[in-house]
């Protein structure tokens, strides 16, 4: 299909890409001093006051998160375009439960995931002979450990926390897949799934994409995501700014702190009705960490917001009977709580 590529009468692609990259870098270097200058010189607010610190936090963080988000999501979407589920399915179908769960969790990191694709993905995997446990390892890992969250964590908190988050998420996915696989829950998959077409009859599709297709896809996806996330980011960073400027450290510590032994399960339960993309939770995470919430509790909150989402469960109910869905939720929640406690215990 390359030969058919439409010639658009525009500026050459490399030029546009390079210009965008340079503009991004300039903005990244200039945004912190600019935010400071606006807060303390233009608005004339004072250092050290609640209000001044809150405004400075907001003005510095919003552009920073927006820049990180646009830059990283574009690059990551571009990379993910090379790993569609259609391509990784045959890889997973050939493996047993244990190697398969490891592979699925790892591939879940780079594969694009949208909860509206969860059902065809589930059916497609199970049909093609991917073991149930391996399918679940993928379903857990894909929304939770995505590279957007990783790179944002890296950019805001450094490599240590990012790698810890990844290790934790992969562990939950692998252990979850192994547990579900060992439990032998195949009979709780909705009956019609097993009655569908034999996998051999399913066509292997291959679609050729040009670089121009890939770049414009990545940019469109990023633009949509940022637009969708913007109100939440403003609210999240606003909340973060309030926490940063006003919330007494004692209050955060009392609810989420070390002295409350139930902090980890509490934040996990709080996260269930909250549904957000991993990237959307980061400003809140940043503010909570800054106020002294322990790392394990904070990461448990973040993992729960992304991996335990009511809308996704409603969708998955169409392919799973209740016991299987309950086991899925139970395994993921238990995994997250365990990791939260573990991190609080190890990192102190």
């Amino acid at each position, binding site marked *: 299909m390359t030969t058919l590529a439409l010639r658009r009468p525009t500026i050459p692609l490399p030029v546009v890409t390079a210009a965008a990259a340079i503009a991004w870098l300039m903005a990244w270097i200039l945004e912190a001093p600019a935010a400071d200058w606006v807060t303390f010189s233009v608005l004339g607010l004072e250092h050290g006051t609640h209000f001044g610190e809150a405004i400075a936090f907001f003005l510095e963080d919003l552009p920073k998160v927006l820049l990180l988000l646009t830059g990283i999501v574009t690059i990551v979407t571009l990379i993910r375009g090379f790993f569609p589920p259609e391509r990784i399915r045959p890889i997973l179908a050939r493996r047993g439960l244990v190697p398969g769960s490891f592979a699925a969790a790892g591939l879940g990191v780079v594969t694009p995931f*949208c909860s509206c694709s969860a059902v065809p993905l589930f059916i*497609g995997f199970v049909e093609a002979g991917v073991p149930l446990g391996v399918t679940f390892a993928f379903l857990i890992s894909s929304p939770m450990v995505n590279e957007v969250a990783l790179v944002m964590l890296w950019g805001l908190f450094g490599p240590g926390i990012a790698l810890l988050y990844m290790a934790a998420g992969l562990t939950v996915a692998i252990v979850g897949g192994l547990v579900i696989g060992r439990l032998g829950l195949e009979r709780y998959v909705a009956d019609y*799934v097993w009655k569908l077409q034999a996998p051999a*009859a399913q066509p292997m*599709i291959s679609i050729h994409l040009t670089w121009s297709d890939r770049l414009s896809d990545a940019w469109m996806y990023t633009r949509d995501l940022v637009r969708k996330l913007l109100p939440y980011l403003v609210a999240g960073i606003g909340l973060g700014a309030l926490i940063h400027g006003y919330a007494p450290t004692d209050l955060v510590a009392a609810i989420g702190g070390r002295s409350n032994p139930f902090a980890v399960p509490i934040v996990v339960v709080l996260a269930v009705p909250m549904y957000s993309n991993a990237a959307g939770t980061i400003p809140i995470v940043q503010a909570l960490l800054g106020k002294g919430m322990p790392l394990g509790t904070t990461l448990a909150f973040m993992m729960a917001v992304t991996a335990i989402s009511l809308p996704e469960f409603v969708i998955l109910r169409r392919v799973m009977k209740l016991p299987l869905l309950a086991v899925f939720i139970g395994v993921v929640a238990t995994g997250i709580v365990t990791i939260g406690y573990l991190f609080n215990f190890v990192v102190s």
Partner: protein
Amino acid sequence: MRTIEVLGSGCANCRRLEANAREAVTIAGVEAEVLHVTDPGDIVARGVMSTPGLVIDGRVVSAGRIPNAADIARWLTTEA
């Protein structure tokens, strides 16, 4: 008469693809019907797992992305 099928669960992206497909039919000036396939079993049977997918006359031309109207029109006119 061409057949265009949009594969997807009815999410925002699938509706956008359907709109693009309809626009493409107008641009290409061909006679075509645009169908929306929402049954997950049917979607998987075409080998597609990442929605939205696009099928023209039974052939999968795109999956997991939203091609624009101009691209779809090109597929409609060049691969008749």
